[in-house]
């Protein structure tokens, strides 16, 4: 190997790094600034609407991990869901359950700050799964919801 270009290549590289020195950092300072997530965001949580659920357990069948636990009891012509539990510690957020749900009772959530200190806290029971102001459904596999959500921040358009 020879010293091919008398250091021209190194000089070009240094010019490029210097150019980047003058560029603005692209980092987002996370807890203070938050980017809008995708409208189809698959967060590590599920949002479940009890009134729409018929207890058919299609979601439980479609889960690759066998993660969704449903116990139902017959009440007249429909089923009452006694237990609906998802262990999000084992959930891989693939969204297959949401896609499979024929009554659109199950949605992926938009939250992503679901770190917990204890393992049992990541098991979502019937009460935890219900929507609340913090737990909003995402538009994954549900175009009606998708239209109402804010647009995603894209880095491509960032200067």
């Amino acid at each position: 190997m020879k010293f091919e270009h008398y250091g021209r290549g190194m000089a070009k590289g240094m010019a490029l790094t210097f150019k980047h020195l003058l560029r603005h950092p692209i980092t987002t300072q996370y807890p203070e600034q938050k980017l809008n997530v995708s409208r189809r965001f698959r967060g590590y949580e599920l949002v479940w609407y009890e009134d729409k659920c018929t207890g058919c357990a299609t979601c439980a069948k479609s889960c690759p991990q066998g993660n969704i636990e449903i116990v139902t009891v017959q009440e007249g012509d429909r089923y009452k869901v006694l237990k609906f539990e998802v262990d999000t510690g084992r959930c891989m957020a693939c969204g297959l359950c949401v896609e499979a749900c024929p009554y659109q009772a199950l949605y992926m959530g938009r939250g992503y700050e679901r770190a917990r200190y204890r393992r049992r806290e990541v098991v979502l029971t019937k009460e935890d799964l219900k929507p609340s102001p913090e737990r909003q459904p995402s538009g994954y596999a549900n175009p009606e919801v998708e239209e109402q959500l804010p647009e995603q921040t894209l880095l491509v358009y960032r200067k």
Partner: protein
Amino acid sequence: MVLKAEPMLISMGPHHPSTHGVFRMRLVLDGEVITDMEPMVGYLHRGIEKLAETRTYTQVIPLTDRLDYLGSMTNNWAYVLAVEKLAGIKVPERAEYLRVIMGELMRISSHLMAVGFLGNELGCTFTPLLYMFREREKIMDLFEMVCGQRLTYNYMRIGGLSHDIPEEFLPAVKKFVAEMPHYIDEYEQLLSENEILLARTKGVGILPQELAISSSVTGPVLRASGVKWDLRKADPYSIYERFEFDIPTGTVSDVYDRYLVRITEMRQSVRILEQAIKQLPPGEARTKVPLLLRPPVGEAYAHIEAPKGELGFYLVSDGSIAPYRCRIRAPSFTNITALRDMLIGWKIADAVVIFGSIDIVLGEVDR
């Protein structure tokens, strides 16, 4: 006095910073020179092939995300191609185009990581890697837009895609495609002519053509060895015969050639993306496939040109809802067969560079 001189045995890995995960090399050193080497894998073995036997055909798709986690889209694609071949499912035109767009974006993203980490292993203090992360982030934004996740996409479905793209996707891809060549120029400005990089990579880790073919090496490593073999041209799957692009090949088959092949492939991927966006037809993105698909008894092998090489799925069906056998031909795994021949005689500093130039992902090696 007799001086006792014996070769030094170093177990490089599984938690060495530049083994791309949990790869382990058992190096025998004479001073700094490597005299023998044995690759050891299996620290990330999760038995995905066994897991696939207990899941329905659709439920295997999220598992394939976990193979080569820098190329999840292409893993999805290879798997659904195999199932479609097995069950004889026709995919709509629009889905084919979208698959090509996703696959090429994925290739750019994976090659960005390969080149960036190669820079890191050469000892750049993260600079090229972080520049490349910037572009990869843009691609991940796009993927997040279409499928809601940034790493494990689970986007392809048997018979198409899980969703059609949202309307803001195409303008964003167009913007990305328009500015990407400029960024590739920047990487080349930073790396391609840098004298230290040339000294470190040129002539290092030569893999002769015959050895490359015999060792079942595929992907950029094979092409850098001068074999013009790209499944997109050699065995066009999906709709690749409709696009114009070139296959870059190397001449010296060294680390630098592998680097250049990857850079050039990124440019060619941008070319394919431009054409695919232009030709994208309207229509459905998914055919109706039963939820519990039962393909006829038989077997199918489908392969695609994943960013790391030929990714193939050999599926055997017994007519039930789960694959009877799902064999994954992982490019990263077969590519490390040639590692020993490339390493011997070089120094430890070269070991990480040559290893990085193969660009393996341990999720795929160990499966």
